């Protein structure tokens, strides 16, 4: 308390004035709620089958740290170039931004990062763990086999990948058309894995005997042989000339054996292979009719692919199925049975029955069958006996005494047949084997559970490796958890594509590159749900100046001597990266 002396003969002023620091007043003693920095799980990352740390990838991209963003993908998925093109991106369906305006174009950013890494020939700086003595044989060099070998290499294991065909890649090379995945992208990703220490032996078809022989050289075998055998229609006329297996047709094109198709082509089926075969046929000059026994909405093919097929002029005939194929004057006469929806299953998919006396015939020049596929050899199939069998989300482990450990992965065991599930399967297998070798069979389940992204089923290798992601709360950030006052409306970028007319002229890749400025703009749209992006709102709004910047990884800490626990920082955090909890006495 002091009064200041007047400058002239005015009356003195009496006002409270102190020259002591106010730091002695430790307002933190008033606190009964404690704010803390606590990162949480973004919904996109939990929706990604391979558990990519998407919110962080977007944050790094927005900051222009493209290499770090790319490496953040690589910890969880060795194929950003492939998945940035062919993944069906379930992440975007769960994006919280969907409730605000439009989801972030996560898929496009992934492709951008892969393109950027390729353009600047970036080398990724992930370190392998110390070498382990166990060795693993991987059968099949499709996405699951390569992912398994990659993650095993990361964990310090040597492996040999055996590929029956002359080049690696499996379905990525032979089953996905060029316009979705140009081969040089695949080659680049595969050679990066080879540089990382994955040994791939091509032209090495294996037989059942290998399972027994391997015991001498390998501690475990990963079977990622895929479903490369088409299922037949089992109707008369299936063996007529002009009738072909859809997968075989796609493989032929990838080999460079490109037929010219004239007239009308019928494709039977509703999965991705059917769509791929239909769109490839359209590029070869044919008029294409896709015949599917259920409704269009019931198709297993990814909706975006179906949409593009329609754009490219493919006619979809739904609720029809071929019952007979006949040859007539060099054409194929296909008898179609009309189907009707008898009921819908729990997922809303139609259950169908033939409609009585409703058949018609169509005349086509070619017919491709794509009604599904299965394992090419019966020894690829999961064992029928349950002894020693442990099922995980995307792989099956068989551990029997006096036999090598078997892990079935990829299409043989994954919950959904997709590239990204194959990657998830390879990762799960690598983790499971690592735990098995180090701690035994019983420890696998609990260890995998501790590596779930959110509540799973996706797994994180970064969490497994003890990275900072493991410190995050498993709660998934909902739209209501965000403070959207701090976000502006901004439409998603439009993904650049070839024009419809341009697409049909060749097998050129449809989706085009985007530039860095566009990618940054799009990544900036990301709410970074649950992550601190150093926006500093907590510091700005703290009425006690109790948020102190420092150089720990969080970038700041709370000075609890002065924090009154008002919770303003937690409320003003746009992205739910803080938590307010009752003070424990």
């Amino acid at each position, binding site marked *: 308390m002091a009064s200041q002396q007047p400058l002239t003969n005015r009356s003195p002023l009496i006002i409270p004035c102190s020259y002591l620091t*106010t730091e002695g007043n430790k307002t933190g003693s008033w606190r009964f709620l404690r704010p803390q920095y606590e990162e949480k799980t973004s919904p996109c990352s939990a929706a990604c089958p391979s558990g990519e740390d998407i919110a962080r990838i977007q944050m790094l991209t927005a900051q222009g740290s493209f290499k770090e963003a790319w490496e953040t993908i690589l910890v969880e998925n060795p194929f950003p170039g492939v998945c940035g093109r062919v993944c069906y991106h379930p992440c975007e369906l769960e994006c919280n931004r969907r409730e605000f305006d439009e989801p972030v174009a996560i898929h496009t950013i992934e492709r951008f990062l892969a393109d950027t890494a390729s353009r600047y020939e970036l080398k990724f700086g992930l370190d392998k763990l110390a070498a382990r003595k166990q060795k693993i044989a991987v059968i099949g060099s499709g996405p699951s086999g390569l992912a398994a070998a990659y993650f095993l290499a990361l964990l310090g294991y040597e492996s040999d990948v055996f590929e029956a065909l002359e080049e690696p890649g499996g379905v990525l090379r032979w089953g996905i058309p060029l316009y979705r995945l140009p081969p040089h992208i695949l080659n680049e990703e595969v050679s990066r894995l080879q540089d990382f220490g994955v040994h791939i032996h091509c032209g090495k078809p294996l037989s059942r005997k290998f399972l027994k022989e391997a015991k001498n050289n390998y501690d475990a075998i990963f079977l990622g042989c895929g479903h490369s055998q088409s299922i037949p229609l089992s109707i008369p006329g299936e063996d007529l000339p002009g009738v072909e297996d859809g997968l075989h047709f796609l493989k032929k094109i990838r080999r460079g054996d490109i037929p010219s198709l004239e007239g009308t082509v019928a494709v039977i089926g509703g999965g991705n292979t059917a769509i791929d075969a239909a769109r490839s046929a359209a590029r070869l000059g044919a008029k294409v009719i896709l015949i599917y026994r259920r409704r269009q909405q019931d198709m297993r093919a990814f909706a975006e692919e179906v949409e593009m097929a329609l754009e490219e002029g493919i006619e979809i005939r739904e609720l029809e199925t071929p019952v007979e194929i006949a040859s007539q004057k060099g054409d194929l006469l296909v008898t179609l049975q009309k189907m009707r929806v008898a009921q819908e299953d729990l997922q809303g998919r139609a259950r169908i029955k033939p409609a009585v006396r409703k058949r018609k015939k169509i005349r086509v020049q070619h017919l491709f069958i794509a009604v599904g596929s299965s394992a090419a050899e019966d020894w690829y199939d999961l064992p029928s006996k349950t002894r020693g069998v442990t099922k995980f989300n995307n792989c099956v482990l068989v551990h029997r005494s006096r036999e090598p450990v078997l892990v079935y992965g990829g299409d043989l065991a994954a919950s959904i047949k997709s590239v990204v599930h194959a990657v998830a399967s390879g990762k799960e297998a690598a983790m499971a084997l690592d735990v098995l070798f180090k701690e035994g069979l019983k420890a696998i389940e609990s260890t995998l559970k501790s590596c779930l992204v959110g509540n799973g089923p996706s797994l994180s290798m970064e969490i497994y490796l003890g990275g900072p992601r493991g410190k995050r709360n498993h709660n998934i950030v909902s739209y209501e958890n965000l403070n959207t006052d701090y976000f502006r409306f901004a439409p998603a970028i439009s993904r650049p594509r070839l024009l419809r007319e341009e697409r049909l002229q060749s097998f050129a890749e449809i989706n085009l590159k985007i530039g860095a400025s566009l990618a940054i703009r799009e990544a900036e749209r990301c709410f970074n749900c649950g992550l601190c992006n150093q926006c500093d709102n907590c510091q700005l709004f703290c009425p006690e100046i109790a948020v102190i910047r420092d150089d720990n990884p969080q970038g700041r800490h709370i000075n609890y001597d002065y924090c009154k626990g008002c919770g303003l920082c937690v409320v003003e955090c746009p992205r739910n990266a803080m938590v307010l909890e009752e003070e424990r006495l």
Partner: protein
Amino acid sequence: MKQVLEGSHAVAEAVRLARTQVISAYPITPQTHIVERLSEYCADSTLAARFLRVESEHSALAALIGAATCGVRTFTATSSQGLALMHELLHWASGARLPIVMANVNRAMAPGWNIWADQTDSLAQRDTGWIQLYCEHGQEVLDTTIQAFRLAEWLNLPVMVILDAFFLSHTYEPVDVPRQKSVDRFLPPYQPRFKLDTEHPCAFNQLAPPNIYMEMRHNIQAAMDDSLAFFDQVEDEFEDIVGRRHGPVEAVQCEDAEVILITSGTVTSTSRQVLTDLRKKGEKAGLLKIKLFRPFPTKAIRELTASAKKIAVIDRNFSFGASGIFAQEIRAALCNHPGHPLVFGYVAGLGGRDVTTAVVEEIYWLTKGNDMPQGESIWVGLHEVDHAIGQS
């Protein structure tokens, strides 16, 4: 130089001439023209002031409290609900002894929504420790605003310059705008007696326990007391340089008056006309204009009304459950003064209703014709309302 100025712009010119350094305000009708003009002056560098845009009147005054504590000349303007929203900080500004100058355009309080002239908004803030000056015309607005800075900075008290909505804020009149040189002579740069200074860190206005709080309040009242004498000194200096004075009160023909009309704001101008007419008819009428409301010029009022038999106070405001507020104050000022005249209170012109010469004249005749006041307040010119809710 004489210019034709709107009352609002007379305020803005004065703030410009005062070389104000920080302005913060939130727009509200009918005050908006004041800060609109000032923001233009800040934008085009006519005035080298920082204009702080804020989201409410509460924040506007809070911002100025911060600025004034740092020792700069500050100004804000508001009206009605905006002033009410500042209420808490009005106390703070005076308690912290900050010389903030504010223009308040008198507007009725809602509901019902009414943007027109009514003094209740500022009179409801009479106990907040601000000096209050009610102006009659554009010239007085300009002169008083310049003087307000001198008053505020000398006394370390905030000052409110008050003008009627539309009748004054939006009315164009010829106004003499003094030269910058003259104003600079009258109003030198602000020399704060205390300020926040990072070179000499200190904290102001923390805890004041019972052993000092009363002394602080008394200290404010002492400054209020000083201000009566100081106001005269300020007017003297202003008159020397600019050649005008308006007075804390102004008595017109009160010396021999039997009935004195007491007014404030623009009603005074109307009453001047009525007075002339009444005098022509031989009536012994007088007029007392009250400009300075806080501190209340008790002594001057006692002296100037001493010879009258009756006074008629016209209030464009009302304190519910009591009476017109000027009438209250005048009754309080006179009650311990032996032989004081009878006080007749009248309420007129609320919510912008015109107080015409006929209304003022009616008030005069009512006062003259009654031996005793017929109640604390007579509401003049009330209409019959036949559509009230809940009528049976």
